[in-house]
């Protein structure tokens, strides 16, 4: 097996733009997923049963169907519900919705990890529910859920490969395309792996940095 670097260098522009599309859809999907997930979690933790029950069904539905099928449903099935989206918005929406239910579960656990007594103290001081979530629960739960959160974010990074199916010109689509044109499968697939490796590695490094920062108050040592 001979690795021909020319395959890569010849298509550097295409690979670069694929990389950027992957980065863009991934980060947009993550932002959308975290925002939706937080809403779902808050509604689940603080809402009544009328809010909780449909959300429970929604979560189960998303969790028990493949991402690929959901994506098809948004992209090809969407127009039937009056939702005609271009590939990239459809991909981001699909990724966001898929991620949101997992993020919601992570956040829900996070909310439950903050001792009730702390909320009672806030209650007695007249601190509102929203202030309580934002100032007391979120900062503390972040410490606890950060590893799970980072893990889910990296999972979504790898799920972006599925977006190639709905013709989004992201890394997988670009490189497999080059592969079938030039029959240089080894080079292109290897590059593909390296591309994802870079993204995931960057993400987990960032996560580790955050972890070491946000957990400081737990330490008994004065700074």
């Amino acid at each position, binding site marked *: 097996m001979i690795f021909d670097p020319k395959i890569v260098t010849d298509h550097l522009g295409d690979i670069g733009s694929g990389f950027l599309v992957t980065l863009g859809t991934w980060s947009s999907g993550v932002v959308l997923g975290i925002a939706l997930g937080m809403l779902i979690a808050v509604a689940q933790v603080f809402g009544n049963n009328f809010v909780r029950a449909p959300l429970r069904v929604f979560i189960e539905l998303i969790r028990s169907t493949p991402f690929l099928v959901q994506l098809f449903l948004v992209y090809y099935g969407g127009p039937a519900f009056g939702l005609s989206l271009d590939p990239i918005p459809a991909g981001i929406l699909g990724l966001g919705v898929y991620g949101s239910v997992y993020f919601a579960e992570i956040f829900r656990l996070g909310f439950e990890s903050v001792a009730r*007594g*702390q909320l009672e103290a806030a209650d007695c*001081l*007249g601190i509102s529910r929203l202030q309580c979530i934002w100032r007391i629960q979120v900062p503390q739960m972040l410490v606890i859920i950060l590893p799970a959160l980072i893990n889910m974010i990296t999972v979504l990074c790898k799920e972006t490969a599925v977006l190639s199916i709905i013709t989004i010109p992201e890394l997988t689509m670009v490189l497999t395309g080059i592969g079938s044109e030039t029959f240089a499968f080894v080079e292109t697939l290897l590059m593909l792996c390296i591309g994802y490796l870079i993204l995931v590695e960057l993400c987990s490094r960032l996560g580790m940095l955050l972890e070491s920062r946000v957990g400081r*108050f737990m330490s008994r040592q004065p700074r």
Partner: protein
Amino acid sequence: MNSLLIPSGAVSASTREKQGESMKISATAPGEQPTILTLSKVGKSFGPLRVLKGIDLEVQRSEVVCLIGPSGSGKSTLLRSMAFLEEYDEGEIRIEGQLLGWQNTDKGRRRAPQSQINQVRRNIGMVFQQFNLWPHMTAIGNVCEALRRVRRLSADEANKRGMAMLEKVGLAHKANAYPAQLSGGQQQRVAIARALAMEPHIMLFDEPTSALDPELVGEVLQVMKTLAKEGMTMVVVTHEMGFAAQVADSVIFLDQGEVVARGTPQQIFHNAEQPRLQQFLQNYLDRNAFWQDSKPPTPNL
């Protein structure tokens, strides 16, 4: 049973002064001194278990009321009801005349909107057994949080008042420490400062020293004594009989959700008539009677 808990006449000078004061107050017509907290026929059930069975209680301004009783007697539930941390389901609790937690409508009683609950509750300061400090904020951060978010003070103002409160509990030098870096006693004092910062008219203490190492109990009680001396209205659930004997204007003994005895510390600790109270006090004494065989020390309660 007589005089075992407090030697007669061992009431400290300051307390006597305080009691004299409160006697003076109670000598005036009841309308003149506003009753700050009124409970009438307060009941509460957890499922089939009725933990509070129609409690009546009045707390006057500057009065210190101690609730004592065996575990499971409902004293914590009663105190938590006063802050509406428990939804009492019978009777009424009024704070400075305002009904707490409920709203009377045509269709009966409904939970009041949160804003209204907070409005009534803003005159209450609550101190918990487990301190319940927010671990991600420093001592000063804990004290200032409600000043900033609820009172909407500027950072400078909140900080100034927060520091004054920490000063009051003797912890100004720990302002930038996180709760994990403080001892239990210090954490509880920060929690007291946090409640005081909101200038409550009445302070509720739910077993404030029960989670502390024995040698840290004193510093917290000292802060509470100072507060009482300054005329703060306080309701204290406690197992510290010495504190109750020295500081309380009235002591209430609860058992199985009922007020079994109420009176001055003198009446409760010296002249207990009710068998359940006698037994409770005897148990307390037995537990604390490690000096039995030697010369009994002057009870430094």
